[in-house]
């Protein structure tokens, strides 16, 4: 062991892509947040099982807005991923463009989701279904907003020319959070919009 480690080879200095502590820190954050959503969805299924079919609202959640909205969120992830790929090759413009598209699509998602909320015939205090619907989608919305703040910070930093092909650890750290928010949405979407049709 000492033989290998004592060789005096050059080591990278500072926050370097996925070797940065921040990257691992972000993964722990994602792990704990994923657990949070597991418990949120557990609460939904637990209550749903107690009361059965009649517990769901008469008018089941519709795909009219939610499907295009889901597609939009997924596209935003693709855009951010594309931007991240750019900065790895030193293409700052690609990063700025990718982030900007991702942010716009994310904001659009929030807008559509607000419309969706306003069209509901129940509120958070109508019954446990309403409480769960608004709490779970509200939790997700809060994560989207935080994700957007992160993306905007990355965009600002990219525009300020903070990143190059070697120093851009904040970009993968921030964008993996955004991807996580997308994956969570798929679970929330499946739970609230798809499973009612399966039972």
């Amino acid at each position, binding site marked *: *062991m000492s033989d290998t480690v004592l060789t005096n080879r*050059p*080591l990278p*200095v500072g*926050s370097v892509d996925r070797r940065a*502590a921040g990257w*691992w820190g972000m993964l722990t954050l994602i792990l704990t947040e994923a657990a949070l959503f597991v418990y949120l969805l557990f609460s939904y299924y637990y209550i749903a099982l107690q009361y059965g079919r009649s517990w769901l609202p008469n008018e089941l959640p519709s795909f009219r807005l939610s499907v295009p909205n889901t597609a939009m969120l997924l596209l935003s992830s693709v855009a951010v991923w594309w931007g991240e790929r750019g900065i790895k090759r030193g293409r700052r413009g690609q990063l700025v463009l990718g982030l900007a598209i991702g942010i716009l699509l994310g904001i659009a998602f929030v807008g559509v989701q607000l419309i969706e909320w306003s069209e509901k015939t129940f509120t958070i*205090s109508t019954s446990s279904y309403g*409480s769960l619907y608004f709490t779970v989608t509200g939790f997700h919305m809060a994560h989207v907003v935080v994700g957007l*703040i992160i993306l905007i910070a990355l965009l600002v930093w990219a525009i300020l020319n903070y990143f190059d092909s070697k120093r851009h650890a904040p970009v993968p750290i921030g964008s993996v959070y955004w991807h996580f928010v997308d994956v969570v949405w798929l679970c929330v979407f499946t739970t609230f919009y798809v499973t009612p049709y399966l039972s």
Partner: protein
Amino acid sequence: MAGGSYERSPRIETLGYDSPTAEMLETIWKTKSWFATVDHKEIGRRYIVTAFVFLILGGIEALVMRLQLARPESALLTPEQYNELFSTHGMTMIFLYASPILSGFSNFLFPLLLGSRDMAFPRLNAFSYWVYLAAGIFMYAGFAIGAGPNDGWFNYTPYASRPFNPGLNMDFYALGMILLGISTTVGAANFVVTVWRMRAPGMSINRLPIMIWGTFTVSFGNLLAVPAVSLAFLLLWLDRNIGTHFYDIAGEGHPLLWQHLFWIFAHPWVYVIVLPAMGMVSDGLPVFCRRPLVGYTAVALSTVATMVLGFGVWLHHMFAVGLPFMAVSFFSGASFVITIPSAVAVFAWVATIWTGRPVFTVAFLYFASFIAMFVIGGVSGFMTAAVPADLQFTDTYFVVAHIHYVLIGINVFAVLGAVYFWFPKMTGKMLDEKLGRWAFWFIFAGFNIAFLPMHLTGLMGMPRRIYTYPAHFGWDALNLITSIGSFILAVGFLLFLVNVFQGLRSGRPAGPNPWQGPTLEWSTPSPPPSYNFAVIPIIASRHPLWEDRLQEGPGQSSIRRGFVLDHGKEALASTTLDGEPDLIVKMPEDSYAPLVVTLAITLGFVSLLLHWWWIAGAGLSGVLLGVLVWLWPEPRLGQMTERRP
């Protein structure tokens, strides 16, 4: 240097703690401000002191309760006072003492045991302490104004919901627990990443001290479990304040949702507050037995196995709620199986004593008696795993006795032993052994006088959480004995505190390695300098300081000769499994951001409590702003390019 500041070959040199380079390191690493410090040793000490303050508060609450229960039909306390006392006692001991004290030791010890200069996230470390302090003050503020928790630490709904509990009591508790959850979570993330990355070269995972295994494992557990309780309390707060219906039947919610969410968290939590303590014993006991721990690998694996199984037994707290036969059988079986890894640890300790040459220091007395206490707490747990028996035991004093053998026996005894073991390292001074032995015997006797008969109180059918009891139920004498024992225990604690203050004031100088310990922390001066290690050592075995005698591996650890990192605040990151050098980490300076963000969060929580929605919004904005400033990329930390125009 090639590649500008992007990469560098660190020098390898032999350096003492009095070399000019070490002096330079001291100026680089020295804490500049009490409120801004990010030094893990300072934070660890603060954690320990704060947790002990809460231990004393919880102890005083217990003594008052024991006065009330010393005789039947006592009217010293009103029911409401008693209920707030026992709830606050539970909250204090379980949440504000038992886990933070271990975080304190882990904070102090992690970098020293791992051969690192600091934790992976020093500012986050400071943040987790400040939030812990804020949460503790927040929850005690409720208690101080007569709005402490009054529904037990488990806080079952619907008694916790507004119709039955209209005061602010539950809002204090719910918000305080969410706040504390933030502290626990960021602390856990920090431990995980520190073990993952911040190890001396050669410190592969099969060379980690067991205490590291313990804290690392439970930190993973915390990341997965804490969201359950934070969510449970958030939903409770929403039910109480916003009008949601998660727990109330009238709104198609269900009170058992609370119990599931709570116990999914709270059973793993039991392991969270014992596994690192068991780790401290596994590391400390062998030093006083003058041999390596027997069965290192088995003990390390059993630590992980306990945590994993710990997620599969939460339903055993709910055997009486009316569950299907199959579910009950499964969780009963799992609860039996979880004792097997504990048996591994017990026999490893016994074998270590048996095949070693024990030295009866005070720390040894605590660690050795810990084994017996551990077994008593373990077998009473084993008894409650048998469902039909548990349906008699549950919610009687039998379980109270069990939980105290777990919490005092497994946590407090280990912690007190750890204090005697590591106090010289933390302060540079020795504790007086003679007074320490007196304190030990009072604590040992008082604890067992108080809690051993309590098993019988349980078998005689005394229910938990009753503010008084009728005479002639067979509980009078037993309760009096318990009360007497609890005061003997308190005297022991008093002696312990005297011991500590005396040691701080006039303890003998400790020297770097008073116990001839094997691990890296004993290679530094006592107390360690702000930068911990003059050079980053290179590790070749589990016991770097015992290699002369043990001849464990092919190579020799290199303690005095190693990587010199002196271009500012720097530390070394290594690869996860093998511990190969991987990266030179630029470490942050002292920062007020953790304290400022904590104040903003606390402002937000106080506002939520009082329904000052706009101020809560201001608090939230303050948090976002503070975090943004905190995370703004800095060239000094190597987070942004230097080729800016």
